[in-house]
């Protein structure tokens, strides 16, 4: 697939933003500035960016507890994402949701649910709304391989399939549901194999290769836009950190971690951009600096932002 240079560099920039953003969140967490818990997206950047690069502003996504990357890939403002993570008033959800529930409806980011698998039927519902309203929008629904063992996976994909809804189901298979290795809880090696049960395309892709993800997502998005129904894409990937907070992830063999770190999606993409002479050393440095600055600005914005007034806890229960 031949993508324009600008598009490629934009994808590279987004991936770097996510990586630096997550490194900063981890750092702030260590300084006790982040309330609650965090689930970092580092290592999986190629999935969110490769998929969202195919979406328009008026297309929709649904997200998960590991959702910072989805927000940034869909174009959310870094400062407001960071402010939400810190529980601040200027956060996307005015401090009501936090890291696990960021939404930006102005950009079609329909929010993250922290109940594993719950977003799958909701994405199907967004697809039904599109179908009934007669627009050509699409929905991308992100979830992990752990969610594919929930009843909602079956119920939601079955209904999307039988109603031919414009949804791209994106499974980010990072091999572990918290500490439970996929092989302990699934007989099948591939989540994508389950697509056969719904008579929809099931596609396996190297989730650490952003161009491969882009290409498969492109086919699925085009298919959905044309009214030809949903696709299940399984992106094989790996999270760099543990499940949450300070999870040291000792359940993962060292050589496995090492092997996946070698397949880091940003390093690979960078190599490819160098090889194809899309990116020069100088330009790389410039883009990295810009991404670092954007994240630093986001932190400044979030730190400067006030906490909500305690009584705001009583607002937004009902419309």
């Amino acid at each position, binding site marked *: 697939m031949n993508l324009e240079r600008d598009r490629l560099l934009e994808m590279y920039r987004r991936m770097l933003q996510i990586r630096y953003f997550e490194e900063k969140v981890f750092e702030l967490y260590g300084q006790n500035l982040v309330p609650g818990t965090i689930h970092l997206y580092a290592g999986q950047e190629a999935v969110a960016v490769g998929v969202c690069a195919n979406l328009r502003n008026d297309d929709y996504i649904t997200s998960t507890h590991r959702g910072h990357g989805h927000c940034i890939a869909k174009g959310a403002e870094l400062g407001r994402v960071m402010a939400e993570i810190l529980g601040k008033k200027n956060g996307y*959800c005015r401090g009501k949701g936090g890291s696990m529930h960021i939404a930006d409806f102005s950009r079609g980011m329909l929010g993250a649910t922290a109940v594993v698998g719950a977003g799958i039927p909701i994405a199907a519902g967004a697809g039904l709304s599109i179908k*009934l309203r007669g627009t050509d929008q699409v929905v991308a629904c992100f979830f992990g391989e752990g969610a594919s063992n929930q009843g909602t996976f079956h119920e939601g994909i079955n209904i999307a399939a039988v109603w031919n809804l414009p949804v791209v189901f994106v499974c980010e298979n990072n091999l572990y549901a918290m500490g439970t290795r996929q092989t302990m809880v699934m007989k099948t090696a591939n989540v994508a194999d389950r697509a056969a049960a719904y008579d929809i395309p099931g596609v396996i892709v190297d989730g650490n290769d952003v161009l491969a993800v882009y290409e498969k997502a492109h086919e699925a998005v085009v298919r959905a836009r044309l009214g030809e129904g949903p696709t299940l894409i399984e992106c094989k990937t790996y999270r760099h950190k543990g499940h949450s907070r300070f999870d040291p992830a000792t359940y993962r063999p060292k050589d496995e971690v090492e092997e996946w770190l070698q397949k880091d999606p940003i390093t690979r993409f960078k190599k490819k951009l160098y090889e194809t002479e899309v990116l020069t050393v100088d330009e790389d440095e410039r883009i990295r600096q810009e991404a670092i600055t954007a994240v630093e600005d986001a932190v400044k914005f979030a730190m400067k932002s006030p906490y909500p007034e305690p009584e705001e806890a009583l607002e937004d229960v009902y419309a």
Partner: protein
Amino acid sequence: MREITYREALREALREEMLRDKSVFLLGEDIGRYWGGAFGVTKGLAEEFGDERVRDTPISESAIIGVGVGAAIIGMRPVAEIMFGDLSALAMDQIANQAAKLRYMFGGQASVPLVVRTPFGAGVNIAAHHSQSLEAWFVHTPGLYVAVPSTPHDAKGLLKTAIRGSNPVFFVEHKLLYPVKGAIPEEEYTIPFGVADVKREGEDVTIFATLYMVHKTLAAAEQLSKQGVSAEVIDPRTLVPLDKKSLVNSVKKTGRIVIVTEDCKTGGVSAEIAAVVAEEALDYLDAPIRRVAEPDTPVPFSPPLEQFVIPNEKSIIKAVKEIVY
């Protein structure tokens, strides 16, 4: 005024709102052209509005509500039917964690104009998976409204309000009420949420009742009047929001209250109503609060067992007589 059944009143509300607003659509199991809903509420609507707007679904309660939530947050007004209220347990995450909470968690960015219609109630010998009254689960879930209409008039007016609103509504019907007839205006009307209706005025005791219990309570009140006891029957019509003012005013007038609900007693709706009266009108009470509810058992199958657990006129009259002396 004309007389129609509760079932017909619900159907009229759905039909009128579908004519009025093309974002309204229905989904649920067997609600389409073959059955028209297990209780016949949606009969004829698929023929009139087509299968796209009256959607038969797989037996997937979680997806029925989840799809409703997803459609509701971006511009549609779905009305989902759960065939029996007991089965809402299968969709509980989507109702209680998603529909009820998305607006709040997203800081007010989302509206969830989703109506979930479902019948509760015992009395037709279909045992513990098809007979419960689980209103309290939903009353205990901030973000949801809970409607409990007892008459055709209330059912129609409240359902129209539910569909037009911007919040998720858990709309409780009662399976024994579907064939019950009642007077209904020819002209268009809606009934606001949070406004109780005094179904019978009285002086000596307030009886708070919901759904089918309103009818048993009215029959009991009629008998009581022959024995010289004047009972006021208050029907809240919505449990969330609750019209506390009408409840408290009635208690201030009568000085006594009996609460009649079909759900089981412990942690039930009656407990909340008793607490409201205790907090806001204790000084006006001349006698202890009495509750008439189902015992803390699942609903049994065999007719004598089932009839034993459901509150009836006798148990209502007995409770009234314990505090009116």
